């Protein structure tokens, strides 16, 4: 089974995105979802990365206008509820389709 890669993007890839990655990791853990790798990256190098879903903020959404992968835009990076609501369906769907 292929390991799913979730990319979390912010300006520098080390502060804001790190907080969102933590929230996302918490949700994945609570949902017992394994075989998923999450990583943070800055907005400049994000485009060249290998990933299956991208999580980012509304301000940086424009960077991913033309991607084929699903995109999840989060407003409250500390909200597990929002991450669950907007992202969980897409993550589960990907894992289902790539069994």
């Amino acid at each position: 089974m292929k390991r799913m890669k979730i990319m979390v993007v912010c300006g520098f890839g080390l502060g804001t995105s790190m907080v969102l990655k933590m929230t996302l990791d918490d949700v994945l853990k609570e949902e017992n979802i394994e075989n998923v790798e999450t990583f943070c990256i800055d907005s400049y190098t994000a485009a060249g990365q290998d990933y299956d879903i991208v999580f980012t903020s509304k301000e940086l959404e424009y960077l991913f206008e033309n991607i084929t992968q699903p995109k999840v835009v989060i407003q409250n990076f500390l909200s597990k509820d929002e991450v669950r609501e907007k992202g969980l369906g897409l993550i589960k769907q990907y894992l289902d389709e790539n069994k």
Partner: protein
Amino acid sequence: MLSDYLNENMIKLQVKAEGWEDAVRQGGELLIRAGKCEKRYVDEMVKAVETMGPYMVLAPGLALAHARPEDGVLALGMSVITLETPVEFGSEANDPVSLIISFGGVDRESHVEMLQALARFLMVEENQEFLRNATSVHDVLDSFKDY
């Protein structure tokens, strides 16, 4: 513990700020005075908001101001300021902001534990409320001891 990463000089409560830039600079000033970063780091924090937009306003009323390690960080550290009157960053979803946390890390890894402790604290909404209304730096430091 979250309280290991700052001391009473790195927390300032109910500050008056003229706008988002002034607020970010006041938070950065605490890092400079504590010897955690050079002045240019604070300039870069401001520039980051100007060039990339207010994405650092990552939750309602809360900004996480920072730049890159190579922009003048001297040691790992964070500061907390709360504002008497909230300011607008231009964040559609999360303005106005009354809580600004500034931090600097020396590389891409060393600050992760600190941010983890901070996120654990902030994920509890009552903690954010407590922080916004706090008037005693001592009480705030005390509350950081549980995370």
